[in-house]
């Protein structure tokens, strides 16, 4: 034998053997699966509970205590107008927020990113400080503001206390610091040259903003819209505090009213309403997943 003996590959130096690579992957997946089990179990229970008369652990039980007793009676609420009213209110708040926060942040963020004016720095730091205040701290003050707004003739009926408009207005205000800073960040990343070119080409400042700059920050607007929609859709504290009764309740408040009634709580019904509330968001996520991944992966594509 004249072949030269070579030492077996050592794990530290040479490429890692395939079997070890595989094992590492199994380990990683195993760890991930283990860590999300609590959430998965929660969702599983939620879905099972909505179609069961009652549950014991994850198992649906019928009257005799055996497995079974599937029912759609928990979903009967979809035939009642109250839930649709609550859903409409949720939708109104969310849509109003998306539009309000979107418009104010896109224009305000541009101005703060591009223009020089007195108080700009103070405004920027001020909004950050304001964002640190929790909504809970402002509830009483906001109550007085809404009462005041309600006394304004004509528009008072839309934006005062105990109106969907009033709730939406407060929610927009609370969300604006985040929105303005987010959009300012997106505008900061755009080159000045494009703007200058448009000005020289004959566009007015407003047209430059609308036709040239806004299209460049579309990923930012999409992300902001999505976050704002979710915040508006799931809004609980503000609507709960500033609305009375079922007429102006949104979905989370409606859900709470189911629990806090004096009758024993039907948890399976609560689960069904909760799942029902999630459906629009799930659909929304499925359609915007790719866009969201793009945004998370590094902002706008191209320049």
């Amino acid at each position, binding site marked *: 034998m004249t072949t030269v003996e070579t030492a077996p590959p050592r794990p530290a130096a040479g490429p890692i053997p395939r079997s070890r690579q595989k094992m590492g992957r199994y380990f990683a997946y195993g760890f991930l699966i283990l860590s999300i089990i609590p959430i998965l179990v929660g969702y599983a229970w939620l879905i099972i509970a909505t179609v069961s008369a009652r549950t014991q652990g994850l198992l649906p039980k019928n009257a005799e205590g055996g497995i079974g007793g599937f029912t759609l009676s928990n979903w009967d609420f979809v035939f009642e107008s109250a839930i649709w009213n609550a859903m409409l209110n949720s939708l109104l708040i969310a849509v109003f927020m998306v539009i309000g926060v979107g418009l104010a942040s896109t224009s305000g963020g541009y101005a703060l990113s591009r223009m020089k004016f007195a108080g700009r720095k103070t405004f920027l730091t001020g909004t950050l400080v304001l964002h640190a205040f929790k909504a809970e701290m402002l509830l009483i003050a906001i109550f007085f503001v809404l009462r005041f707004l309600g006394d304004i003739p004509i528009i008072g009926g839309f934006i005062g206390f105990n109106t969907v408009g009033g709730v939406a207005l407060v929610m927009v205000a609370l969300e604006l610091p985040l929105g303005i800073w987010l959009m300012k960040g997106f505008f900061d990343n755009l*080159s000045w*040259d*494009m703007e*200058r*070119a*448009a*000005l*020289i*080409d*004959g*566009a*007015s400042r407003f*047209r430059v903003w609308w036709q*040239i700059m806004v*299209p*460049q920050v579309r990923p930012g607007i999409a992300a902001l819209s999505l976050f704002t929609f979710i915040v508006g859709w799931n809004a609980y504290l503000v609507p709960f505090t500033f609305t009375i009764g079922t007429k102006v309740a949104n979905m989370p408040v409606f859900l709470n009213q189911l629990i806090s009634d004096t009758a024993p709580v039907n948890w399976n019904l609560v689960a069904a309403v909760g799942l029902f509330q999630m459906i629009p968001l799930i659909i929304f996520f499925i359609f915007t997943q790719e866009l969201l991944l793009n945004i998370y992966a590094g902002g706008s594509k*191209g*320049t």
Partner: protein
Amino acid sequence: MRVELDNLTKSWDEVIGADSITLDIADGELVAFLGPSGCGKTTTLLMVAGIYKPTAGTISFDGQVVNEVAPKDRGIGMVFQSYALYPHMTVFGNISYPLRLQKLNKGVIKERVQTVADMMGIGDLLERKIAQLSGGQQQRVALGRALVKEPQLLLFDEPLSNLDARLRLTMRGEIKRLQEDLGITSIYVTHDQVEAMTMADRIAVMSKGVLQAYDVPEALYDRPKTLFVAAFVGNPPMNFFDVEVMRVNGDLRAKSDAIDLVIPHDRGEKAAAVDGKVIMGVRPEDVDVVDDASPAAEGLTLAGEAVVVEPLGREDLVGISINGVDLRVLVDKTRGVRVGDTITLVFNTSRAQFFDPETEASLLWA
């Protein structure tokens, strides 16, 4: 269009971007603003464009002060270093944008865009998105967009800096040809002195916000008024030595510890009048490498040692040390100079420049 800048100044609080720039540009002329980054050339250009408001001074187009005129009403086209194309529009959308803002008839727009695009050689790319184009093609689109509105004045802000060397050479010629054909007055900002020398009718050399010199390229090269201009214009750059010019037996001699050269009277009189040291400048091509010093070169010959040899292809750029004083000269490749060789140099001192070390002004042309 005739352009006049009169004491044009731009400052932000403490920082001065451009300091009292005064110059005039004749109709149809291409003027280059040349200087290192941060010298104020782009600031000046943006004031001409109307993007920056001057702190002081005036800008006039054909005798009319335009300080308060909005950029869109100045009749200018501008090409940016970053191209500044609108990425969400097609090539057609980009080039037609200025015309669409003028609310021209659709047929007219289409025709004019096609004409300009054909002229730029991108006539078949009109439906493409900007991201699908190469850098050179994007530059052509930017040029087309600037030209389509038939501007009176074209502004270029380092338009070729982002292109690779070869393309830069091609585009350089193309821009110059276009500008001459169309006869549009142009300002061309660049930090590349070769670009400025080859393209411009006149060059405005700037440094630290101050206009250092404004003249035709040959004059800047042969008769630099300041040390900065002498150092910045020319490639490879001029060599500088600290010397004292003194009279010895009726001759003028530039002397230091390492150097002793005879200077013609028409070059050295003013330098000799200076008490103490002056700065002597010699361009790399004004030093010859010879085998043996001829008697005719008496007083013009020095010996040094080759320290660095950079082959440029046609010739070698050789770094030489004369008793610790460094200079760079261009040497014929066939001479085969190697590091460590002892070299005999003959200086053409009839082309030497002299500068006052205090004011940095020329002792010949200022």
